[in-house]
């Protein structure tokens, strides 16, 4: 018996993920050399370095780098700082009302980017922004004090958008800190600030850097915010360039050029993956694992409870409530207009009626439901097995597997979409093309990176001896999975599942390419088409409904999860 069943399983996971990930990768790399008009016409005579020459000899490309650097560093700095504070407040202090944070922070995940940008345009545009107008009248100013069409504006909004995912990744990190490490510092005479600086932050540093790297890649790829807020001010970043090339004035988008540009992302991804995995292995060293569950020491905020809570409310207000109010307001308008008494008099329900009758809303919702459920479940299951191999096994390729799972995060959604589009066309003996399954598969490949980050971190928390105790008690690997890992990892499963649901509902890049007709039209495509058609108030109506449903979903899940947590937490 050369390979045990366990090893076979490990090979299966490895091969499957390699296949899934290598398709878009292969397409990205190969396509960057293709100068054929159609993105999928690969042939030797159309291969050349021309795309690279064109893109990288253009001085304009390099001007982008400065802007992009500022944009990415700025938004990551803001995003990580806010999410760090929130995560710390929630996990390490005795602040009240934590459920508001748990429920409120993830809500912005499902807001379509263009909608959010539009909301801020309505609030802070120098000409019609509501906040500007109010400030101008209160303080008798000539000019609008805040201009959202600026690098600062872009950085701020994108920073807000990065918070939910960073928060979800930081919370488990905070939770896993061994209190005795800090207590040792305190006893050695270090004051709280000194302990925080020398011990706590140092221990958190690798995990923090890992989250920063991940979010930096997110900020690099996103194009709606810089597109809508940057363009009017003439500010270009890398993602807007890629999308300009793809959706540009050219009569057939130059995907070859776009791929050549996107190769920068791939290089960045490879470099950062290298550093990322090094960071993570340090996290593993620093994370003290025990079989006993305990909660880290809670810091008593004392008088600072109220200011802290106010800070949280401020964040929720800016990131969640304000845009929501804007959507709600716009959804009752016939046409876009700044808030005014006159506007309030023209409020109408017609957008909601329009939604109810718009072509295939019903089938779009059904398709979305199916697609999202499949994607979320597939991502959770696949990430779990990948994590098992990466964290728990001695499989020779497990580091490589981890990197493979991470790399798709760097590939822009549209590039992924085309890659899978082409693959499904080729693989036509499987009836995937033109179905929601195509989207589910494409999405899963992309979401695997988040899923595995979460699962890896959570799996590390499960003491190896808990697994070994099951083995010596007679449980075979599958049974151990079922009876020990699954229950212990259930909170992580739920967390990843929700995150994927929220993203799969919102993201339009990949689905647009794989969209074939009513049979696989999903909500994000509907929103995108409506937006393109100019039905802005109707889109705002969808946004409002979306946010309301998600609020219900996240509160419900958190409430259930919260209560179970309270019951399960040890008295120790």
């Amino acid at each position, binding site marked *: 018996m050369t390979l045990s069943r366990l090893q076979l399983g490990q090979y299966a996971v490895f091969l499957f993920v390699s296949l899934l990930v290598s398709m878009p990768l292969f397409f990205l790399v190969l396509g960057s050399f293709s100068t054929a008009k159609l993105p999928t016409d690969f042939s030797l005579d159309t291969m050349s370095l021309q795309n690279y020459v064109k893109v990288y000899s253009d001085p304009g490309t390099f001007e982008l780098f400065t802007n992009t650097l500022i944009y990415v560093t700025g938004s990551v700095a803001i995003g990580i700082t806010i999410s760090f504070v929130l995560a710390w407040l929630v996990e390490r202090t005795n602040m009240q009302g934590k459920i508001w944070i748990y429920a409120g922070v993830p809500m912005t995940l499902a807001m379509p980017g263009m909608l959010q940008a539009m909301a801020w345009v309505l609030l802070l545009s120098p000409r019609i922004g509501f906040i500007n107008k109010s400030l101008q009248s209160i303080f008798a100013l000539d000019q609008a004090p805040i201009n959202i069409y600026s690098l600062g504006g872009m950085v701020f909004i994108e920073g807000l958008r990065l918070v939910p995912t960073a928060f979800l990744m930081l919370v488990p990190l905070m939770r896993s800190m061994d209190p005795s490490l800090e207590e040792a510092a305190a006893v050695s005479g270090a004051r709280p600030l000194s302990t925080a600086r020398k011990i706590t932050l140092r221990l958190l540093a690798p995990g923090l850097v890992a989250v920063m790297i991940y979010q930096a890649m997110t900020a690099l790829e996103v194009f709606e915010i810089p597109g809508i807020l940057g363009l009017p001010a003439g500010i270009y970043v890398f993602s807007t360039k890629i999308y300009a090339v793809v959706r540009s004035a050219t009569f057939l988008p130059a995907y070859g050029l776009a791929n050549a540009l996107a190769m920068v992302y791939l290089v960045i991804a490879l470099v950062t993956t290298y550093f990322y995995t090094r960071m993570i292995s340090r996290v593993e060293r620093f994370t003290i694992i*025990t079989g006993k569950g305990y909660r880290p020491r809670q810091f008593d905020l004392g008088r600072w409870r109220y200011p802290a809570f106010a800070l949280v409310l401020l964040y929720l207000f800016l990131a969640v409530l304000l845009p929501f109010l804007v959507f709600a307001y716009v959804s009752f308008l016939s046409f876009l207009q700044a808030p005014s008494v006159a506007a309030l008099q023209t409020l109408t329900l017609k957008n909601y009626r329009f939604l109810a009758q718009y072509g295939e809303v019903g089938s779009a919702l059904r398709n979305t439901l199916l697609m999202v459920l499949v994607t979320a479940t597939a991502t959770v299951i696949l990430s779990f097995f990948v994590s098992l191999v990466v964290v728990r096994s001695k499989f020779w390729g497990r580091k490589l597997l981890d990197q493979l799972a991470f790399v798709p995060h760097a590939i822009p959604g549209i590039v992924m979409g085309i890659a899978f589009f082409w693959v499904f066309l080729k693989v036509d003996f499987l009836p995937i093309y033109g179905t929601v399954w195509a989207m589910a598969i494409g999405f899963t490949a992309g979401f695997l990176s988040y899923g595995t980050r979460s699962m890896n971190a959570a799996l590390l928390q499960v003491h190896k*001896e*808990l697994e070994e*105790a099951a083995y*010596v008690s007679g*449980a075979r690997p599958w*049974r151990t999975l079922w009876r020990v890992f699954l229950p212990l990892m259930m909170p992580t499963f739920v967390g990843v599942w929700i995150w994927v649901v929220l993203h799969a509902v919102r993201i339009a890049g990949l689905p647009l390419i794989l969209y074939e007709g009513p049979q696989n039209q999903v909500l994000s495509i509907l929103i995108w088409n409506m937006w393109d058609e100019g039905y802005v108030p109707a889109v705002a109506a969808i946004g409002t409904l979306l946010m309301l449903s998600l609020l219900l979903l996240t509160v419900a899940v958190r409430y259930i999860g919260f209560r179970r947590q309270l019951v399960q*937490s040890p*008295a*120790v």
Partner: protein
Amino acid sequence: MIRIQNLHMVYQTERGRVHAVRGIDLDIKQGQFFTLLGPSGCGKTSTLRSVAGLETPEEGEIFVGNDLVFSSTTRKVVPPYSRDIGMVFQSYAIWPHLNVFENVAFPLREMKRRFSQQEIREKVDRALSLVHLDGLADRPAPFLSGGQQQRLALARAIVKEPRVLLLDEPLSNLDAKLREETRFELRELVKRLGITTLYVTHDQLEALTMSDVVAVMEEGRIAQQGSPMEIYQSPQDRFVANFIGLTNFIDGRVKPSPCETASIRQVETAAGDLSCVLEEGMKPGDPVIVVVRPEDIRVITDAKPRHNLFQGKVNAVIFMGDSLECQVLVGSQRLRTKLHPSSAVQQGQNISLELPAERCRALRGS
């Protein structure tokens, strides 16, 4: 019941290859309480885990009962879940998401044979009462104290009445008092059930009080194996002597004597000539280390002539609770003695010590 032949274990670490176990042979009889004793890094835990099947040795053979569970020559590796063993981990490894009952019932549910709910109930209750955890069946496992968790781990390990029980430093996380009670209870339990037990610890007190056989391990090898009494009273080398109990070490050289075959001969030391037990084959001029336990040294207050009488000065007196440790300087040699706590000994006073010859053993020196 457990047989290990020529066990070698090698690990690949950041610092290179580590040869953790270097050729161990063990033969543990049915019903024996066998302890692997040694400092950290000596290979005892690795050995235990390879018997459990949690680690794969480089070389060797392992038998549990009559079953070959590992063989490097035939490449046979029986996985842990097929080995019919019970194990208690150092961290206890209690599953936090299950209650006490379910933790204990787990192994029963994994057996090929299907038990009825009634049978499971009975077995679990019996196991719980054996470890004195009756009545706690419904409690969530994380809500138990450290000592209770340890007993829970034990209950789980014995519930399916395995042939062999493996314990990996199970008492190290308990406080001293609890440890003392548990030592006794544990041995009593496994003897009553008649389970062959392989126990790993670095605490020599545990090893001496609980075991039938102790194997002292040093750097991957067994330094000495024997009953606790043998190990304690007749350590075969410096390492064992030092590791077990407190010992006095006195360097010396064998003196020529009229009868070369006598078991008690003279050794020349810095403190004077010492009569002690020599091993066979020791010749005059051989360097030796004489070991004598503190509790064997007697304080002499009368003037009767004796062998091995030394004069010294009390350097320090340390109250140990159940005894008084007295450090005495005899010339340049420091000796430790153990006295009754009521002894009126003062620091700085002159004292006469007798080292009974039959209690002094000479080991080969270097």
